């Protein structure tokens, strides 16, 4: 039989690769559009509720974007968008909502407790852990400085 190292090299060289230009373009356009929607919502909220401070407007925009991400995941649109856009729809906060809601939908059949609650963070878990850990580190640094 063929030499194993030689075969590995053959596979590495000849396997089909992701179309880089197309992927980057799709991610740029879709990611940009999602951010534009976010900006639009931000402007809308500050126009509707002029009494809100800058921070409050930001928080409400986040809430609306998370809702939209979850909603479009639940009606089965977000995975199609993700298949086209790749990183463009994963990186914004709507992608985070998608990564929490999609396991919740998937494991809903195992019941509320061991299904939805236990499995909800299988994908978003690392992000939350890193968020918390970096929060602690930054907190300690800020305390010392």
């Amino acid at each position, binding site marked *: *039989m*063929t030499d*194993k*190292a030689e*075969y*590995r090299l*053959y*596979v590495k060289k*000849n*396997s*089909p*690769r*992701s*179309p880089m230009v197309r*992927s980057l373009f799709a991610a740029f356009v879709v990611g940009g559009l999602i951010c534009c929607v976010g900006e639009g919502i931000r402007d809308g909220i500050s126009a509707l509720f002029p009494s809100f401070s800058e921070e409050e407007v930001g928080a409400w925009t986040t809430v609306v974007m998370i809702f939209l991400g979850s909603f479009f*995941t*639940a009606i*089965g649109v*977000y*995975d*199609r*968008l*993700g*298949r086209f*856009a*790749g990183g463009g*729809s*994963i990186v914004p906060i709507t*992608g985070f909502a*998608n*990564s929490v*809601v*999609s*396991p919740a*939908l*998937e*494991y809903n*059949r195992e019941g509320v407790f061991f299904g939805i609650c236990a499995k909800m963070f299988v*994908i978003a878990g690392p992000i939350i852990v890193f968020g918390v850990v970096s929060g602690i580190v930054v907190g300690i640094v800020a305390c010392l400085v």
Partner: protein
Amino acid sequence: MKTGRQSFTANRPVYVRSSYTIVGPKEGEGRFGEEFDTVLKDDLWGEKSYEKAESKMHREAIRGAVCLAGMTLEDVDLMLAGDLLNELSASGFAMRYFKVPFLGLYNACSTFSEAVLLGAALIDGGAAKTVTCSTSSHFASAERQYRYPLELGNQRTPTSQWTVTGAGCTVLGAERPTAEGDRESRERFSEKMKAMREECLEAAKAEDAEKKTRTEAGDNTLFSVKGGAFDALKRRFIRAWRPECLADPVCDAAYERKFVAKITGGTFGKVTDFGIDDESNMGGAMAPAAADTFIAHLMDTGRAPEDYDAIFTGDLGRFGKEAFAHLLAKEGIKTDARYDDCGAAYYKAEQETFQGGSGAGCVNTVFNAHIIKRIERGELRRVLVLATGALLNKDTPLQKETIPGVSHAFTVECEEL
């Protein structure tokens, strides 16, 4: 009879009594769409989860094949079955409905050829007279087990494959099928399916002393739907508005075979690991196993690729197919137009499956719907089927293991009916 190092040759004919396939909607739109017995309109098939749907497809495929063989469950000596789910749950749960001895098999996507080889060897050796060989896989249940939740918005890599939603069953027997028997069992197919369902229901009820089994008399879903007024209402609603969700398996009554296929031998494969560690490139990981088994088969039997009218690998995919040809070319063996890959041929290009189909149902449904029909029409006289499997689970790549592959080959020949 053992032939060479890894192969065996059947001393007496092991006939393919019948074959039956059930596939999902996407597969129905694929290249072999016209040839499957039942194409579902809905991949949940009225069930509550994809795992249950897979199990239902599995058991209905077995029932369909047994009915087409003109048999009852009494006539079946042994059932060989396998699938991709943890602890073979799709096949194991399907077996609750059959009071027939069961052997569960797992060799990833090559389970089907493992079942056919074992079935043929058992019949040849006289341990059984009639054996069913069935496997199933379901896109949604495999995605959940091996990859990510369905609704997650991630991108598939160009080397990835699409797990086939499908189940198929082949009935192997020592007894030769007859044209009259075929005609009769095709004409009375739905009647016989119904009778067999009733029989399964009776058996389940008799066993269920505590009345915990939720059944609806004569209904094809048996255990799957809960009792109660709300569920009854929901079922009535589904039946009225989306009757295709609960469609019954069907068969083509007009189909007639001119030739009968028989399993004449095969080669048991060794596990081969060439150190590929990319779990989204299964084709590359499995191609060396297929090449290894193919070379062993040729050495053991003393045949050349030209002795076969067609050679099919299981689910190497488009790239794996090239890698297989590349490995054989290095050994000085030429594969030409007579070689094809079931997975690579499964879907049409516009269906966006990248490398093509994979899964335990892939080679099974292609064999039972496409290859066997070509043999039965007399287009192919001798065929070699090399199903391939990647023996990994979700955790092994994370533990930095490489992907071992395995491939088993069986030979099908034909004789006039």
